[in-house]
Every structure is written in C-alpha cells, then in structure tokens.
C-alpha cells in the first residue's frame, strides 16, 4: 500500500531487543508491506525510545487476524490481571489490619 500512515502510541515500559533491555516510550503502529513476514500487508509495531533518538527498536509484523487476536488477549490479560492483583492488594490491606 505504501501509505506512510503511522499511528503513534505513547507508552511507559521496557522492551528487550538485540542489545538487551531498553526503556521504551513510543510504539509506531502501521498496516503496510512487511519487511520479513510472508504477507502482502502486516500490522507492524515498532517499540522505540523516541526520547533517546529512537534508533533502536523492537519490532513485530503480524497478520491482521493475529493482530486482532493479540488486542483481545491484551485486554483479557489486563482485565483478569487487574482483578487478581486488585484482590491481592485488598487481601494485603486486610491482613495488615
């Protein structure tokens, strides 16, 4: 498609790449021709540290179907994790009392 359309998500976190762990502050997200995946179009995500110049990246290229599945699983993991950890936090507070 050669669209040059990139969505930027501001993040807080870390990612592990070829040089080990690094802080990341941005995800560049696009749906276009991949470099490596055997697909005509792929959902690409480049995790970078823009504040540090954005030279290094941790990259994925996913089929559209895979990307949608991943979105669902991220939301599901967040929902279940927050419930579980919220319960843990409540238990910790109750024990301390």
């Amino acid at each position, binding site marked *: 498609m050669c669209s*040059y359309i990139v969505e930027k998500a501001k993040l807080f976190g870390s990612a592990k790449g070829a040089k080990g762990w690094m802080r990341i502050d941005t995800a*560049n997200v696009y749906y*276009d021709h991949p*470099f490596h995946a055997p697909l*005509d179009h792929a959902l*690409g995500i*480049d995790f970078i540290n823009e504040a540090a110049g954005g030279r*290094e*990246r941790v990259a994925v290229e996913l089929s559209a179907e895979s990307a949608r599945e991943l979105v669902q699983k991220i939301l599901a993991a967040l929902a279940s994790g927050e419930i579980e950890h919220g319960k843990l936090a409540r238990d910790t507070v109750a024990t301390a009392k």
Partner: protein
Amino acid sequence: MTYESMLAETVVFRGHKGDIGEAYYARPLGGGPWPGVVLIHHMPGWDEWIKEATRKLAHHGLATISPHLYFREGPGSPDDVGARVRAAGGVADEQVLGDVAGCMEFLRAQPYANGKVGVIGFCSGGRHTYLAACSLAGIDAAVDCWGGNVIVDDPKQLNAKRPVAPIDLTDKMRCPLLGLFGNDDENPNRDQVNRTEAILKKLGKNYEFHRYDGAGHAFFNAARPAYRPEQALDGWSKVFAFFHKHLAAAAAARAA
C-alpha cells in the same frame, strides 16, 4: 556453451546535495558495452528481493544500480533504517530525484557503459520512477511497476515531502514509459491506471501499459503471497524487451 559471469557488490555514489550513499550494483562481466538501469526500491526498503531484482536485470545485460534511498537514516540494518524513515513519513521526492540523478551519473561514468540509462521502480519506487521520467533529463526509458499515488485524489496526501502529484507533471515526461499493473491492486486501482493512461494518451506520450488479471500489488515478489508466477514471467519479459529496445541504440552506434 556461453560463459556467463556477473559482479554484484556494494558501491558508493554521490546523491542529492552531494551526499555519499551506498548502493547495490550488479553488472555483467566481459563483452559490453552495457546499458545502465537505476532500480528504485519499494517502501519497505533496500531488501533481499530488491537485490535479487538488481541481479536479474544484470543477468539480462543491464548494469543495474539500486541506491539505498534511506542511507541517511543509517547506520543500521535496512529494515531498521526503513522503520525510521516510515516513522518520519517517508523520504522527500526532491531527495529521491537527486539520488537517482547521482546514480545515473555513476552508470554513465563506467568505462563499459553504452551511455543509455533506464529507470525502473516498484511500488513507491514506481511512483518515483514516474516522477523521475517527468523531472530528470537523460532518462532513456522508464518502467513503472504498480506505482501507487501517481494520481492523488485526496489533496491531504500532498505535503512538504511529496508536494506534487506525479500525474500533474505528465506533460514534462521526456522518455518512453512502460507500466505494469495488477487488476486486483488497490493502489493504483483500475480506475487510477485508466486515468493515468488517458492523460498519457491525451498528451501524446510514448507509453505502453499492461494490465494483469488475477494479480494485485507486487506480483513479481516471490517472497510474498501476492506472487503470481505466470504474470510475473510475462511482466519481466516485457521489462527486458522494453529496456533492450530503448537502451541498445547507443551500443549499436558505438559498435558502428
């Protein structure tokens, strides 16, 4: 039996504003003189398939140089560099044209050159090829392989890097143009290909367009599901016939 040989290597060239960049260069050995071709890579960048295509053209007697249009964002692997360029909204048309012009000079400076130079590009490189054919002097033949955004229907797509729709420069086209397109492509779609042809025809330009059923975007690319071997074989044969027709004249003149 004919002895075949080829040299393929990384070279440096002087591009836009005199910047020194790297390029992949493949040429036949022995014989000659050889016509030259500048191969403009697609949006994902200077990847393995682009280098394969460069060697393929050399195999057919065309000394071919493929500039790494993203070299200014290096160092780094071509995919990482390409990611930086994508995030920055691509490369400026003016810069690409300067790099293509530099590669044309490189080709003509070789002792075995026949003086003729063609340009071929794929995907975004097809658009760059159309642009070059309308903007640069000294191109003897141009091949646009499914270049998208030659026609710009949404003016919001124009910006500082891509200020002009290539179609609006068609009256300045100075060389023969070959266009190859898949009928299932979405960019350019059939309507856009038809409109491009209508303008070339109206302006009396020297062109030939070939459209392929059962093929979409990038149907030459064997690394992608879009690959269509039958259509690709026919398309490549048209590329070689076109270049040999338009780039061989100087060789004949030199030999005479």
